[in-house]
Every structure is written in structure tokens, then in C-alpha cells.
């Protein structure tokens, strides 16, 4: 994985010093809250329901054991002993003190980490495929491109006061595991007819109150023009994105209002101009970064055999592991969704353990997924049983990846000042319901996603089953959506009808799954059946 050189280190160290100074000036009264707020946000510091919240960047979701240990230490030293892994592959802490924040950033900088641009109206942490560098189906590792973009977007002086936040995702495989088309810019690394590697740009996707799937605006940008093209996309947005209405300020609205063709024309015009400005790093820089992402020293003689005689282990293997490009290895997913637990939360002890396991069994590498789980990307099959036993012992062995129990949920009204309703209790009740009725396995792949407000941090638009919490005259109410999908055949869920109480929504979800079980044809997932038979039968059952 990428390691800092003295320049990268100087940048994060400088950022710590800068924020320490800004915090001092705020506490001394030299900065008003209005002036300080964007500065703290661009260092990941929110003011939430109970305290300040710090969101730490995990660039493209990749980190090593030493970094993971520091994340656990921060939870213990400055917070209340746990952290929350987010849908943007980051981690956040809920009980932070402003006066501690500069020290936390310093602790992070000591292990090549930061909280730079994890919030605010700027280019956010670049997200990517959590199986990058390990997946059997990838064209190339997408992370070097993400790192190139990370450096370009960090402190980019022109783009620190954009109309609104800006999220970029880079993938490089056939299967989209990162909801790429639901980003402000989605980049797919592709190969053209001549066999050259380049980037396809999808611009103007997003969830939030106006969900949109990003249209393709260019099918091939040569690698030695990647930064220049990105800069052109951003400049057009910075100049013409709406600033009159916060809710219409994302680039998706600009692309939609101008039309894809006009937006593209403006980008191409700016791109032609910027190509003359010498802003593109040389290919040698991309190659330097790529060298950091070379494969680990796989054991080429590793056995492909796996003893599945233990039934619990066999179930975990079936549900939580994914094919690796290297024979004898698998990608192991650690579910942070124990039945009745808080999706994405992990205690300091669990974080330490996952770090140790990564060091011992996965070439010192971990990933954070947008589904709020953790991945050990390179595990020898021979080590898998021992690994699983250690996970089990620590409450990290839930065998439920991509099932109805593997719920994405935002923090909701338990933690978030924007929320209208709580998300976590709904997730807890649903996972308990399905664990109790034993239907989890039979339902197979079923992506259930819960947001506590219209901002959609819980990706409810993209759930096969989505739940949106709303405020109905001071009471929590939950709308049900069906048919969303984040992958290659991206689609947005549709609302079934009137909303439900907290218990009512759990019943409604079960009724929807019963319709699927009754109607499904051979090989169909919930989503496939819904797409084939449509909304009506589900509505009949849910509102009967």
C-alpha cells in the first residue's frame, strides 16, 4: 500500500500545525463560529448531537495494522472506547473534545493518516473498491489512480469552497462494488480497443434528496490527462454549480439542469485549455505510486484445499469470503453487523484485534467497505479456520455478508443532528427478526439500507429494500422503498406508499420478503423478482 515520502509527511504535519493554530484562534475569540466552522469541517470535525464528532479519512478504504491500532488508541484515549465505520469507508468518533482535536490529528499524522477534507464543501476522501488488488475480476488495481487524485485534491486551492461537497470514486473491475455511479464523479479504469488503459468518467450522480445516476460523459480519458480532465470537471462546477439553494448545489443538479451534452461541452472546452497549462503530473509519478501497490509476496505453493467439516465455519466461508486472484488465497470479510448490534460500530478491543489479524494473516492490510464492514484482503486458505475462530471469539464472526442482516445504517437520530428519526434501533430489530425466524439464509443476497433523513447517508435509495426515517408531526416514521441497486445495473428504489412506525416497518420488511419467497423463480434474488413482477404484489401484501 501507499507510504508517505517526506513531502506527504510534511503536508499532514503542516495541516496539524495549521489546525492547532485555527483552534487556538477560535478559543481565543479571533475566529467566529461561522468563520471556524468550514475550517473544522475540512478537518473532519462536526458538532453533532452529543459532542464534536471527528471523521478520519481512510483513503480508498485501505489501511495497515499500525494505522488500525492508532484508530483503536484514539477510541480509548479521546473517545468512549469505540468507533463507527462509515458508508464512505472512513471511521468516525462521536465524543470528541475540540481542545483535543489537534492532538488527535497529530497522533494520526504519526502513522500517515489524517482527517483532511472528510467534510465541508470540498473534494472528499476518494473511495474505491474494497477488494482492489485482490479481486479475481479486476482489470488493474484502481488505488494508484485514487492516490493520484487524493494528492491532487488535497488542499487544491481553487476547489476548497465549492458550492457543495464533492465525492469521487475510482473502480477498475467489471463488478461495481463501490456504488460508483452514485458519486459526483465516478471513474472506471478501462482498456480501449488499442489495449491502452484509461478512465471513463461518469459525472453527476448522487443520493441525497434528489437521487441521480451519473451519466457517462467521456468513455476514455488517457492516463496522462486524468488530473487535467478532473480539474476541468471541477472548474465548470465551481463556476456554475448553484449557490442560491443548498439543496440544489450538488453537481448532479448542474448536470441535470444544463443537460449532459452542454455540461460535457463546457468541460471539454475547459479541458482543451487546461491541457496547455502543464498541470498534469508526469506518468512517472503514477508509476511511482503504482510501485507501492505491488502484490504482496504470495505463497505460490499455497494450497487451495479447505476443510469445511465444521458447519459454522462452512457457513461463514460461504457467506463472508470472496474469490481471490491468487490461488490458495481468499478475501475474508469481517461483518460488523452482529445480530442486534449497531451497524459499523467496533470497540477499541475489536479494532486492535482486527489489526493483529491483518498483520498475522493478511500481509498487514485491511480495508473498510462502504457497507460498513472490514476486509482482510489476502488470507491464505490454510489460515482461514484459525482466523475464523479468533473472529468468533471476539464477536466478529457474524456469517451474514450481503444478507438481510448486513444492514447499512446511518447513525440516525441517536447521534446525528440532521436526522429526523433513529436508524440504529430499526436495524437492530430487523436483524433480530430475521435471525429469529431463520429466513436469512433462504433470502440470499438482500441489501437493506436505512437512512434517518433525506440526506441518505444510509444509501436507502440504493437498497434492494430501503428505509427512510422521516419526522411526522414530531414522531418518528419510516418509509419503505423497493428496487434500489448500487451495482452495475444501478437503480433507485421506489417508495411503496404510506410510512410506518418503528415496529410497523419491521413487519413491512418481513412481508416484502415473504412476497419474494412466494414469487421467486429459480436463481432469482429479491431484486430480480421485484424487477420482474413490479411493485403491486408487494404493496398488496404490505398494506393488506
Amino acid at each position, binding site marked *: 500500500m501507499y507510504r508517505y515520502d517526506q513531502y506527504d509527511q510534511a503536508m499532514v504535519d503542516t495541516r496539524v500545525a495549521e489546525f492547532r493554530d485555527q483552534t487556538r484562534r477560535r478559543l481565543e475569540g479571533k475566529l467566529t463560529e461561522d468563520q471556524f466552522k468550514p475550517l473544522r469541517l475540512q478537518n473532519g470535525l462536526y458538532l453533532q448531537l*452529543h459532542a464534536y464528532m471527528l471523521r478520519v479519512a481512510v483513503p480508498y478504504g485501505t489501511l495497515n495494522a499500525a494505522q488500525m491500532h492508532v484508530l483503536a488508541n484514539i477510541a480509548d484515549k479521546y473517545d468512549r472506547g469505540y468507533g463507527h465505520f462509515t458508508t464512505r469507508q472512513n471511521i468516525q468518533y462521536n465524543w470528541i*473534545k475540540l*481542545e483535543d482535536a489537534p492532538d488527535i490529528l497529530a497522533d494520526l499524522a504519526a502513522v500517515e493518516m489524517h482527517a483532511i477534507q472528510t467534510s465541508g464543501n470540498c473534494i472528499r476522501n476518494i473511495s474505491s473498491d474494497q477488494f482492489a488488488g485482490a479481486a479475481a475480476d479486476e482489470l488493474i488495481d484502481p488505488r494508484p489512480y485514487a492516490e493520484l487524485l487524493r494528492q491532487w485534491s488535497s488542499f487544491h486551492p481553487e476547489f476548497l469552497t465549492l458550492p457543495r461537497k464533492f465525492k469521487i470514486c475510482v473502480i477498475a473491475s467489471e463488478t461495481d462494488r463501490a456504488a460508483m455511479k452514485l458519486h459526483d464523479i465516478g471513474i472506471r479504469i478501462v482498456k480501449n480497443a488499442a489495449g491502452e488503459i484509461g478512465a471513463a468518467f461518469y459525472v453527476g450522480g448522487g443520493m441525497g434528496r434528489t437521487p441521480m445516476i451519473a451519466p457517462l460523459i467521456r468513455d476514455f480519458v488517457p492516463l496522462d490527462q486524468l488530473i487535467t480532465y478532473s480539474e476541468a470537471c471541477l472548474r465548470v462546477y465551481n463556476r456554475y454549480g448553484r449557490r442560491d439553494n443548498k439543496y440544489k448545489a450538488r453537481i448532479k443538479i448542474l448536470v441535470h439542469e444544463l443537460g449532459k451534452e452542454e455540461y460535457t461541452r463546457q468541460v471539454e472546452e475547459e479541458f482543451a485549455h487546461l491541457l496547455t497549462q502543464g498541470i498534469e503530473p508526469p506518468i512517472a509519478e503514477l508509476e511511482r505510486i503504482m510501485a507501492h501497490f505491488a502484490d504482496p509476496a504470495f505463497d505460490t505453493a499455497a494450497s487451495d484445499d479447505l476443510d469445511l467439516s465444521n458447519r459454522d465455519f462452512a457457513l461463514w466461508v460461504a457467506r463472508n469470503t470472496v474469490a481471490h486472484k491468487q490461488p490458495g488465497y481468499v478475501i475474508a470479510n469481517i461483518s460488523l453487523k452482529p445480530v442486534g448490534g449497531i451497524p459499523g460500530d467496533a470497540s477499541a478491543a475489536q479494532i486492535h484485534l482486527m489489526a493483529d489479524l491483518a498483520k498475522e494473516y493478511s500481509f498487514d492490510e485491511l480495508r473498510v467497505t462502504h457497507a460498513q464492514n472490514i476486509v482482510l484482503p489476502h488470507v491464505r486458505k490454510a489460515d482461514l479456520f484459525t482466523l475464523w475462530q479468533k473472529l468468533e471469539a471476539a464477536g466478529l464472526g457474524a456469517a451474514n455478508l450481503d444478507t438481510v442482516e448486513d444492514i447499512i445504517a446511518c447513525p440516525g437520530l*441517536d447521534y446525528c443532528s440532521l436526522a429526523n428519526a*433513529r436508524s440504529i*434501533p430499526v436495524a437492530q430489530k430487523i436483524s433480530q427478526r430475521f435471525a429469529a425466524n431463520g429466513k436469512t439464509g433462504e433470502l440470499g443476497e438482500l441489501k437493506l439500507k436505512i437512512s434517518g433523513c433525506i440526506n441518505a447517508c444510509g444509501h436507502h435509495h440504493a437498497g434492494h429494500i430501503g428505509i427512510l426515517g422521516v419526522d411526522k408531526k414530531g414522531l418518528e416514521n419510516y418509509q419503505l422503498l423497493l428496487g434500489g441497486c448500487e451495482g452495475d445495473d444501478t437503480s433507485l428504489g421506489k417508495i411503496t406508499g404510506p410510512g410506518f412506525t418503528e415496529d410497523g416497518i419491521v413487519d413491512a420488511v418481513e412481508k416484502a420478503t415473504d412476497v419474494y419467497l412466494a414469487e421467486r423463480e429459480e436463481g432469482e434474488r429479491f431484486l430480480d423478482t421485484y424487477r420482474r413482477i413490479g411493485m403491486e404484489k408487494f404493496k398488496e401484501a404490505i398494506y393488506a
Partner: protein
Amino acid sequence: MKILTGNDLKSGAVVWWTGQDWSIHVEDAVDVGDQADTILAQEEAARRVNASYAIDAEPDGERGVRPAHIKDRIRALGPTVRPDLTLKPADPNAGNWVI
């Protein structure tokens, strides 16, 4: 009644205006009548509180004060999904007060 709340500037802790100072306990909150704007302006300027605002609430027996909106009741207690981290970790029914 009208009560005042916000977050402590340095620690971020949820606080309630007691008439003289800020307390982390909502039961210490006092009715400020029509003085909300004056007090908030003065306290923000003195940097004793951040992101402060006035809310409706009602007297609530031995609990003292009950904010009208669920969001402020969750702020007053703590996350309902982590009773151990609330201000009333020993009270198994504390969460019911929120809903």
C-alpha cells in the same frame, strides 16, 4: 416554557441554561421567558456556549424538564442505543422518557 441549550465550546458537551450558568443536566434548565435572544447573544459572545438555541419544553414531575422535541430529549439523555453512555446508565427505563 422556553429553555436554552447548546454545546460547550471546548468539550462539545450538551448543556442547558440554569439562569446563571450551563449544566449538562436538563433538569437544571430554567424558563427564560422572552429573554432567549439576549442571553444567547451574551453567552455566545463570551464563548461559554456554541451552536446554542431556544426550545419549547414542559415541566416534567421529578425529571424536572422535558424538551418538546425528541431530538432534544435524545440530546438530554444520550444515544438510546447505548444506555451505558447516557447520563442515566443505571436506569433501564431512561430510554422510554425519550420516546
